[in-house]
């Protein structure tokens, strides 16, 4: 009967998920997906990142894989014959040992989980607990069930030892050990215990199966499925042209993969714990977003699939599912996201939260429902091609104060095309950094040029704010300009531009190598094209989200710092675990509504605790955000925010008059296609 209930439920879920829209590209690369299954599911890779809960979970997972054998044996005992043996495996002594060992490990793991849930409970820690908003009752029930499964298992095995029915020898130490305790009860009692506990074990497993398919514990079955269809090489990656250009206004307009995401959520809250919005008291929690959508999906099932569908009304209109925003999700929740990707990176079951948020935004943009600040920024970008609303002809004005002319890549061939980006072109503070970099490159003899007034905003954050049409327009304009220019490779000062140029523009015909300027500096320092003296400063480095998490580019900037003789002290949240400055996803254009500490301020505090002098950044928006944060947190006398390029300039030895470094950096990789992860 339990199988029947569970089976029906799974079938219902399957139909519900298939009611979603198409999701192309999710079945390509079968071998890669198989590999992902092995690493992420069997290997529990993402879970083990947080070892406190990762190790117990891994033990529980592997434990149940092993105990699956015992479950089959149990069924065999009940349905077929006593001492049922799995064909081909039989009753090998090693199996008995392993079964007992993992039983105990699972019990220990349950113990650890219990402690974790008591310590990190929302009733004690409120929003700071990752379980805030999760279904706590169901979670405790699941722990109880698992514990009972193991206890009844060991119990009846012990009784079996005493009645002589136990097929395994002394290697099954726990069963034999427990048997000693039960022996005084006598043969009759043990026989009764054996039957009772065996049936209890089966009953509990069956009950658990039903509980499983009706709760978040379904992740046991769905996680491997979700991971099989997740984006490769990793869940966090480039966006694609949407199937539904106007975005997802109703639940059925999400793709089946997105609906599968919703059903798979385990409510673990790891995403919530690392979200910069949640941490600054904004209303967005990736976990709560997914849970709300999931609950709405299930509640909408009667409208989406089969029997429960209400009949068509008199005029042929079917009642429709509710509009997602604002009926299910508040607009502020959708707009709070910085698209930093920390949630996707942490999620053990590869849920792609960012994709769904962007689809919700696409709908809001289509309906013109957005904050004034964002609207203004998008209008400026539409009119002038940059978020500052300045004339395009002013784009290269920052080059005027340089002592040398910068080449126009549209008019003469250059080795490197420098795609500068909005902030580095128009923000006065960042223009200084651009000039510094230009001077360094010039002195090192690097051949580079600009697109001048043909350059437009690359569109990374425009796309992530949901204005797909504007993104396409920008891509067209930029590709036209790039088509007119002749160059070997592109480098950019801005990680957001870097991300879209490298990962999304190839779909539109860009076939040149794209570098971040830290990579270029790294090459120049490595080849001594720029000669430096050691700075010997104590620094910490902030990984930009779009370099570290989206593109795994963490080594080049650190190699630069090492070459400059800096003593690098890492912040706890570094590399792919970097903590967002709060500017991405269009947030820098929107108004700050949160009462809590801004993400940039939290980050400065994290750095200040390290006792370093310099906070090194490699992104124009980071430079602006952290320069402000260091003032508003009152750390400006102790901590200085510097860009990588400023350190290189400080360390660079003055060239002797008349001599110029003549080495141009060697091209070590092919210039076609995206570069492999550095």
């Amino acid at each position, binding site marked *: 009967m339990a199988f029947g209930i569970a089976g029906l439920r799974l079938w219902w879920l399957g139909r519900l998920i298939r009611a979603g829209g198409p999701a192309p590209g999710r079945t390509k690369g079968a071998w890669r997906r198989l590999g992902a299954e092995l690493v992420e599911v069997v290997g529990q890779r993402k879970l083990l990142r947080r070892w406190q809960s990762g190790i117990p979970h891994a033990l529980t997972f592997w434990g149940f894989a092993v105990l699956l054998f015992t479950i089959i044996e149990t069924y065999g005992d009940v349905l077929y014959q006593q001492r049922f043996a799995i064909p081909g495996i039989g009753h090998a002594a090693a199996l008995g040992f392993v079964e007992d060992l993992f039983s105990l490990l699972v019990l220990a793991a349950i113990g650890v989980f219990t402690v974790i849930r008591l310590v990190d409970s929302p009733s004690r820690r409120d929003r700071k607990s990752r379980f805030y908003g999760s279904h706590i009752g169901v979670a405790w029930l699941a722990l109880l069930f698992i514990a009972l499964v193991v206890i009844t298992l060991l119990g009846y095995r012990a009784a079996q030892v005493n009645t002589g029915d136990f097929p395994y020898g002394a290697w099954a130490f726990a069963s034999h050990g427990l048997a000693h305790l039960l022996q005084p009860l006598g043969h009759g009692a043990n026989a009764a215990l054996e039957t009772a506990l065996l049936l209890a074990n089966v009953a509990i497993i069956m009950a658990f199966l039903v509980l499983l398919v009706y709760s978040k514990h379904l992740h046991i079955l769905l996680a491997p499925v979700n991971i099989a269809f997740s984006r490769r090489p990793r869940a966090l990656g480039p966006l694609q042209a949407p199937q539904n250009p106007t975005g997802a206004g109703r639940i059925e307009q999400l793709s089946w993969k997105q609906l599968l995401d919703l059903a798979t959520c385990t409510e673990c809250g790891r995403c919530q714990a690392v979200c910069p919005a949640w941490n600054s008291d904004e209303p967005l929690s990736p976990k709560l977003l997914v849970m709300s959508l999931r609950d709405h999906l299930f509640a909408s099932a009667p409208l989406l699939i089969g029997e429960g569908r209400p009949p068509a009304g008199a005029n042929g209109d079917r009642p429709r599912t509710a509009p997602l925003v604002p009926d299910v999700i508040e607009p502020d929740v959708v707009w709070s996201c910085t698209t930093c990707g920390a949630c996707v990176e942490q999620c053990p079951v590869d849920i792609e939260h960012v994709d769904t948020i962007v689809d919700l935004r696409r709908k809001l943009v289509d309906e013109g429902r957005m904050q*004034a*600040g964002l609207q203004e920024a998008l209008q400026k970008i539409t009119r002038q091609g940059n978020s500052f609303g300045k004339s395009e002809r002013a784009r290269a004005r920052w080059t005027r104060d340089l002592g040398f002319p910068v080449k126009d890549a549209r008019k003469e061939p250059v080795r490197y095309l420098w795609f500068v980006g909005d902030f580095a072109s128009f923000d*006065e503070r960042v223009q200084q950094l651009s000039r510094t970099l230009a001077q360094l490159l010039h002195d090192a003899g690097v051949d580079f040029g600009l697109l001048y007034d043909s350059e437009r905003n690359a569109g990374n954050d425009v796309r992530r704010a949901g204005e797909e049409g504007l993104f396409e327009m920008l891509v067209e304009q930029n590709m036209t300009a790039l088509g007119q220019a002749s160059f070997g490779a592109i480098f950019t000062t801005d990680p957001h531009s870097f991300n879209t140029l490298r990962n999304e523009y190839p779909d539109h015909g860009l076939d040149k190598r794209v570098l971040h300027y830290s990579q270029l500096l790294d090459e120049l320092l490595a080849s001594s094209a720029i000669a430096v003296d050691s700075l010997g400063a104590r620094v910490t480095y902030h990984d930009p989200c779009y370099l570290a998490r989206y593109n795994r580019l963490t080594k080049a900037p650190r190699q630069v710092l090492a070459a400059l003789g800096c003593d690098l002290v890492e912040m706890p949240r570094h590399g792919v675990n970097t903590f967002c400055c709060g500017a991405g996803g269009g947030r820098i254009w929107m*108004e*700050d509504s949160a009462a809590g500490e801004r993400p940039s301020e939290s980050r400065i505090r994290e750095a200040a605790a390290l006792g370093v002098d310099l906070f090194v950044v490699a992104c124009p928006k980071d430079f602006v955000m952290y320069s*402000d944060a260091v*003032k508003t947190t009152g750390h400006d006398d102790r901590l200085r925010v510097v860009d990588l390029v400023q350190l290189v300039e400080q360390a660079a030895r003055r060239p002797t008059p008349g001599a110029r470094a003549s080495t141009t950096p060697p091209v070590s990789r092919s210039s076609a296609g995206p570069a492999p992860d550095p």
Partner: protein
Amino acid sequence: MSNDVLVLAEHQGGALCTVTFELAGRARELADAWGGQVQVALLGASNLAGQLGSADVVFTAEHPALADYNPEAYERVLLSIVHARTPRLVLLSTATAGLDLSAALSVGWDAPVVSSVVGLSAEGEGALATAQIYGGKLLAEVELAGSRAVCAVIAGSFPAAAGRRDRPPAVEAIDAAAVLDGLRTSVTGVVTAEAGDVDITAADVLVSVGRGIGSRDDLEVAEELADALGAPLAGSRPLTDQGWLPKSRQVGKSGVTVKPKLYLALGISGAPEHVEGMRDAELVIACNTDAKAPIFDVAHYGTTVDLFDLVPELVKRLKP
């Protein structure tokens, strides 16, 4: 055709607007050059006629339809006056009445009209008008050589003192009843601005913010400074439009005109509509990161230091 200059007097809340005296003053100069009279049309509020001593004659008109400002009523009466008196030049301001009437006069009277005038002088038989276009980025020099013209003048372009004279002018009452028959426009109510908490026109010191403040949250920064100076916070139109400040705090053409002893302009660019409202402040200190911002043309002292860096430093020194 005469050599007279006709000024439309503007009044609100029972008082003549300063611009009326500015126009009268310039009218006097032109009329003297051409050998004509200065005439003022005062519609409704004829009790104010005695203040227009710099005019040779004040035409007054009273009628129920003129009790409040009514664009159609004003247009009809004004047209009847110009048709009857055939002045050489009619002067209005660029406030609401000017926007309603100057171009209409041009069509109805078949005369050229120049908008946004900031300079006006006699040139032989005619006049040369200098007008602002593109928000003041450019000026246009326009020759008015014909026998009639209309100019809409930006308030503050001419000195008001030249238009004040302490002698009673001749007053001529006009019968407007005939032209005001069959009006299609009527006034159904007048709403004066919410008597705000503070009357910024009475303050000695004003801390005024513009778009450079960035976001509503950052107003706090300016508020601290305002508190430290014991002054109210004021702002330019974009801020009141967005609701960050009540309308009663708006300085400028469609807000209030202020003449404080000290006007601190933070992050204000100095668009003409704003400058109109504060140019007569005794001491104007402006803070704007753009060295070319027009506010520095009316400020006495200026700085390009970022207001977010400057204001905390000011507060530090002002608080005991």
